[in-house]
């Protein structure tokens, strides 16, 4: 099956590695994508704060172009895009007034919106369409022993839990277990990373991200796996600031239960996209997967070392 593909702005910028790893992984699995013609910004959350109706118009332009492209479904890997596109669908369904405005605007571009194109997330697609068994078939280098804190973030499970459990999502857990990883118990799976606040009000924003990193470390994770470019950015790119602010805080030593160690040095835990991990297991190269773009990059040798250590 061929899908329309909506990359969104982040996947062309700070979140390039997500696209770089998603596309080859899907290629290996035989999923065909066609990038949406002349797509525009989804309307994202910041836009909604200024003008909700216009945000809807922007989102529905993408939805309408996808309908025109003729593929049955639209793939949106970025959580914010995924939510905004879905929210727009709900909103248009609920409010005939807004729908009328949107349709009128769309006519300017000879577009119409019928609401018949589902918006899908890659996690959903991989688990429910491709299937875990199929993915297992393509694993060349299982990431045995790699301990993962699976971090889903907010917007793919809230407010609409479309394909996973709102409280305890498991699609990524299952996917990564299929490629050999081990999940640590991570109670903050769906806690907020601070969103765009990290850039605007660093104090509260960074704290949100720091809590997520610290808990993953305390739980003994080697790597944090994410599904959203903004989450990845927040967890990955502000480590210096976090170390400055909270590096002196202590946590129970993962190796010795009675001792406590400062959290600072541990904050360099790699934060990657789940697709990068799948790509590694499929035998794709680090470079192909954009792994060098991480601030605390996870390289294949590191993982291989762990494998030999575990053995």
């Amino acid at each position, binding site marked *: 099956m061929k899908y329309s593909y909506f990359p969104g*702005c*982040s996947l*062309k*910028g*700070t*979140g*390039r*590695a997500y696209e770089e790893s998603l596309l080859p992984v899907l290629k290996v699995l035989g999923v065909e994508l066609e990038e949406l013609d*002349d*797509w*525009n*910004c989804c*309307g*994202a*959350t*910041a*836009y*909604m*704060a*200024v*003008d*909700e109706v*216009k945000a809807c*118009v922007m989102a529905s332009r993408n939805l309408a172009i996808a309908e025109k492209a003729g593929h049955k479904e639209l793939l949106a890997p970025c959580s914010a895009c995924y939510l905004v596109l879905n929210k727009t669908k709900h*909103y248009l369904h*609920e*409010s005939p*007034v*807004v729908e009328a*405005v949107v349709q*009128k*605007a*769309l006519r*300017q*571009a000879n577009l119409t919106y019928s609401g018949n194109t589902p918006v899908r997330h890659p996690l959903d697609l991989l688990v429910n369409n491709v299937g875990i068994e199929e993915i297992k078939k393509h694993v060349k280098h299982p990431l045995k022993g790699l301990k993962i804190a699976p971090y889903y973030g*907010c*917007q793919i499970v*809230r*407010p609409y*839990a479309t394909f996973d459990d709102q409280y305890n999502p498991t699609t990524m857990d299952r996917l990564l277990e299929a490629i050999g990883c081990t999940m640590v118990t991570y109670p903050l799976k*769906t*806690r*907020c990373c*601070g*969103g*765009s*606040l990290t*850039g*605007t*009000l660093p104090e*509260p*924003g960074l704290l*949100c991200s720091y*809590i997520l990193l610290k808990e993953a470390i305390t739980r003994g994770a080697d790597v944090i796996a994410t599904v959203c470019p903004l989450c990845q950015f927040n967890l990955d*790119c*502000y480590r*210096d600031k976090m170390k400055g602010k909270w590096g002196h805080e202590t946590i129970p030593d993962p190796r010795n239960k009675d001792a406590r160690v400062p959290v600072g040095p541990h904050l360099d835990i790699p934060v990657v996209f789940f697709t990068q991990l799948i790509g590694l297991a499929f035998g794709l190269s680090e470079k192909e997967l954009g792994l*060098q*773009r991480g*601030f605390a990059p996870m390289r294949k040798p590191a993982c291989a070392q762990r494998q030999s250590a575990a053995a």
Partner: protein
Amino acid sequence: MELKRTIKYESDRVKGFGREVMSVPGCEQLEHCIQCGTCSGLCPLSIFMDYTPRQVMELTRSDFKTEVLRSTTIWLCASCYACTVECPKQIRITDIMYELKQRAIHEGFYPKRFPIPVLAQEFYKMSHKRGRVTENFLATIMFLKTDILAALGMWRLGLNLLRRGRFPLKLEGIKRKSELERMMAVVDKLSIDALNNGHQTGGNGGRQHGAH
């Protein structure tokens, strides 16, 4: 010791404000709020807010427009929707926060150089004008408009991003920009018509974009 007057008089209320917010699609359930505080309990950012989300709900319902639109709460909402899915009365708190943010922007209710609304508006402008957003440019503009010193503090991050190819040097944009402009013009015209028909009531005038 500084003393602060905390009493509220009836004249402090902008009567009708609460009703107006509750009449917006998606915000209706606010009338059912029982002030249980589930929203504040769940909100990861409530610890930084001047009013907790629960208090914002009550202040909105009770017409304390100025207090609500000046509060830091509405800007600190990172739209994680934790409150919305747990609210026992199914109030869509996140959507109400959006509604309040829109009103605060349109009516100029926020401190100058406060980065969040600036970012929101710059995001709006850039996506409106170019059809897409290039995050690093956006962030740069925001810092220039709010706090140049902070921008200087960010240079290391910028450099690190640049080194890893995550800092595009070219602004993204769509091909058919005029198409998007025409679409937006339709919305503008319709909302002005609605204004003239008196659909937008109360407050310090209706919605004007880009108030500063």
